């Protein structure tokens, strides 16, 4: 699986990286138990600071998506992914709120908004078969 970063983007680099790893897990390109490169080798390949890669890995580990072992290194969670928790639903609503507000101001109706959400969700789940296959 490939990761691609844009160093000039407004989105912080660690967020871009964590987001792409999350997409990998969502699409099935990263399966539970798959090993990720060590912090050092991924940072070396991308030419970015160790702390940036570490921050992305730690964020995903704290949420329960990755395991970091002393021996096996960084591995996609094998004990079952964290489910849909109350705090996640709260976060989801918080993030959707801002987007929904802008959509409403711009005059998008409820059906269209729901349709767009569904398409993004399907694209994330379905990129398994298309595009960035290695």
């Amino acid at each position, binding site marked *: *699986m*490939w*990761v*691609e*970063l*844009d*160093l*000039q*983007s407004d989105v912080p680099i660690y967020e871009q990286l964590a987001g792409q790893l999350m997409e*990998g897990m969502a699409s099935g390109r*990263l399966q539970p138990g798959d090993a*990720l*490169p060590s912090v*050092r*080798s*991924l*940072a*070396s*390949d*991308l*030419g*970015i*600071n*160790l702390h940036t890669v570490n921050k992305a890995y730690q964020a995903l580990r704290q949420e329960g998506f990755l395991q970091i072992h002393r021996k096996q290194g960084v591995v996609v969670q094998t004990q079952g992914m964290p489910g849909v928790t109350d705090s996640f639903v709260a976060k989801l609503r918080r993030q959707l709120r801002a987007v929904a507000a802008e959509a409403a101001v711009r005059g998008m109706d409820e059906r269209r908004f729901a349709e767009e959400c569904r398409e993004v969700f399907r694209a994330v789940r379905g990129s398994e078969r298309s595009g960035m296959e*290695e």
Partner: protein
Amino acid sequence: MISLWILLGLGLTDLAAFALCAVLPLAHIHGLYFGVPVPEEARREPDVLAVRRRYLLQAALVAGAGVAAGLGLGAATGWAAEAIVLPPIVLHSVGILLAIAAAHRAALRLQAKRGWTLPDSAKRVANLRFRQKQRMIGIGWYGIHLAVIALGVLAAIAGWDRIPDLIATHYGINGEPDHYSAKTIGSVFQLNLIQLGMLAVFLIVHGTMRQAGARLDPQHPESSMQQEIRQRRVMSIFIYGLSLLTIAFMGYIQVSLLFGWSMNLLLIGSVLLPLALIGATAGLALYLIRRGLYRNAVPQMQEERHWKGGGFFYYNPDDPALLVPKRYGIGMTFNFARPLSWVILAAVVLLPIAVIVAAEMAYRP
């Protein structure tokens, strides 16, 4: 006769190394001209060609000045071998660096005048499975080196009684032994220790290369990854062959010294070996250029400020990679912002020097 042969060999080695250093900057690697981005279509323009012409002239002058200095000092000192050989080596290595630096500055002036720039992309790509896909030669193959070293040790133990009480342990530049040591465990097995030290250095180089950052082209991630994988394989095999040759040659030196084998073959070998190494390096460079395996890293404007000293030295404290693809020429170079780079470089450069100095100190008549 022998010393003339050695002089000739050293002189040829010096000239071959000089030629290799002089020609590589002309290879337009990574679309760079003396470390400066020059577009393909501008390469034939008169002011660009003038930089190249002036560089070639300076290189020829440096080559001639080195040879003249060697001959002059040689004549003045009654043809002392050191006086003939050392001045060309020093003049050639300093001179070619100055000539390249001058050409780099001239190219920079052209760049400022004409406004050439590198592609400016802040994109970076990496493949999460690159380390698993890497096909470098396996570390187990270095077991053969250990076997070669063990063979020398076993030969010395088995033939202990046939080793003379005085062993020639140091040879002058004229090819004659100028110091002998008493037969002790230290003097019999010292070359094996040096072999082990060299093996350690080669293993460090191998391991560092395995961990080197793969800087892939965001425009062509897949093909640049395939190139990087092949380039690393070729280079790991090259270093493997180089190390095996060196360690086997030292083993041959050991048994020759211990059992009084003919030194002629050894002397011929010690002259041909450096020439062969330079030839192999040139061959590797040519192979990589022909196969297009050097162009995996496309220099980007973003990276520019990390390359110091005319594109020779990479210094990026934010980059954890110890080795990165060279900006200038073929292969990899250290990230000098990382202290471990200095340690490894010191090991690679200083170990052979330390061996020579230690030998000189120990066997000073």
